[in-house]
């Protein structure tokens, strides 16, 4: 557990010292949403919802990709000697979740600012955004590790990840409609949330089981 926190602290410190990458992704988010604002002002709620999640998907690919790609071979060897594979992947998962939650929060703010607010229940939507960004970052963390191991760029990650993220994305988009004032059947909201959380736990367990195999060389 101590190793996990040490690795997490190292990642966060690195992020704060090398702010260019953080601001780079932030600028990516801002410019994408600005382009959206220019191409359509006042979109329908359904379009707003779909666009928001697609933007999150792309932001996630870009934000998570560098978590493994930035580590050089020598540095990986160093981590290998000081910590176990499980601690390493857990710290990366937590780090990516934090990063993605920040990014989603920023993009939600920008969406409200530029593309108006069609939500009837913004508070619920914030919760759903949190859940969704956790799901996205969990799935893409292991894929980033795979892509890094294959010595490929973020493009391969997108090819590998887009079909795999469909279940979570569909569930989250469906669930988001609760925040647009759509009436669900009794228990349907809880049901959907349960499904997403269940999938997240499965992805988490798979990542922890599978990563040690990627790590050894």
């Amino acid at each position, binding site marked *: 557990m101590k190793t996990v926190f040490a690795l997490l602290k190292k990642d966060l410190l690195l992020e704060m010292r090398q702010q260019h990458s953080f601001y780079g992704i932030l600028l990516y988010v801002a410019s994408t949403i600005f382009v959206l604002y220019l191409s359509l002002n006042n979109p329908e709620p359904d379009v707003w919802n779909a666009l928001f999640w697609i933007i999150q998907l792309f932001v996630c690919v870009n934000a998570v990709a560098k978590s493994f790609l930035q580590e050089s071979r020598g540095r990986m060897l160093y981590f290998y000697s000081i910590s176990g594979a499980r601690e390493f992947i857990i710290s990366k998962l937590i780090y990516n979740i934090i990063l993605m939650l920040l990014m989603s929060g920023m993009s939600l703010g920008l969406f409200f600012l530029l593309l108006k607010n069609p939500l009837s229940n913004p508070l619920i939507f914030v919760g759903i955004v949190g859940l969704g960004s956790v799901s996205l970052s969990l*799935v893409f963390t*292991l*894929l980033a590790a*795979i892509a890094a*191991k*294959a*010595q*490929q760029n973020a493009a*391969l990650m997108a*090819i*590998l990840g*887009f*079909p*795999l993220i*469909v*279940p979570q994305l*569909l*569930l989250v988009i*469906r669930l988001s409609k609760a925040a647009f004032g759509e009436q669900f059947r009794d228990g349907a909201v809880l049901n959907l949330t349960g*499904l997403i959380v269940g*999938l997240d736990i*499965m*992805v988490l367990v*798979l990542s922890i089981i*599978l990563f040690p*195999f*990627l790590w050894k*060389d």
Partner: protein
Amino acid sequence: MRKSWWKIVAVVLLTYTFTAGFLIHIPHIGNLKETARNLFFHVPMWFGQITLLSISLIYSILYLRTPNLKYDIFAVCFAKTGILMGILGLITGSIWATYTWGSPWSNDPKQIGVAIALLIYFAYLVLRNAVPDIDKRAKVSAVYNIFAYFIYIPLIMILPRMVESLHPGGKGVEGNPGLNGADLDATMQLVFLPAVIGWTLLGTWISTLNIRIELIRDKNLLNAE
């Protein structure tokens, strides 16, 4: 004979499927008419695909447990035949849909499911091609194969419950989202079960042939260990 009995079974069952499938009397329900015979060709493709992909998964797990390149070859060959059966199922399904639902593609959850499955497994092949080193390729693709399979299975269980379906047993229809065996006419059942087994065996047979070719091609590598 001892080793090839199942190939003979496959040939016999498929011969039976093709003759009986076209000759038996089938009940006419709604606008299905004679197209219902496609059941013996279209549906077994899905059974075959899932079976082959599951075998591929087992070999990927075996590879991670004991890194033997043979397992990697087994895994990729079964996945490739699984893809082939997926494509055949998609084509037979589209033809069937053209005559019964009015268009080859209607965003049915099972159609979306197979499209995603094909994307996932094409990505698997792309990933394999992207890694030049053989051992690393085997390891990385085994990890992806396992990860993908465990996300794909929930997906095909979730999708039919979320999107309106034209298939039997979808959302708003009684029964499970797969095929409900109890609904099947008794005479059709007599052909359907042998058809499923026959097609699955044929898929396995194609995979084993492919595996043998690959094993010969990589003979030097495998023996070098």
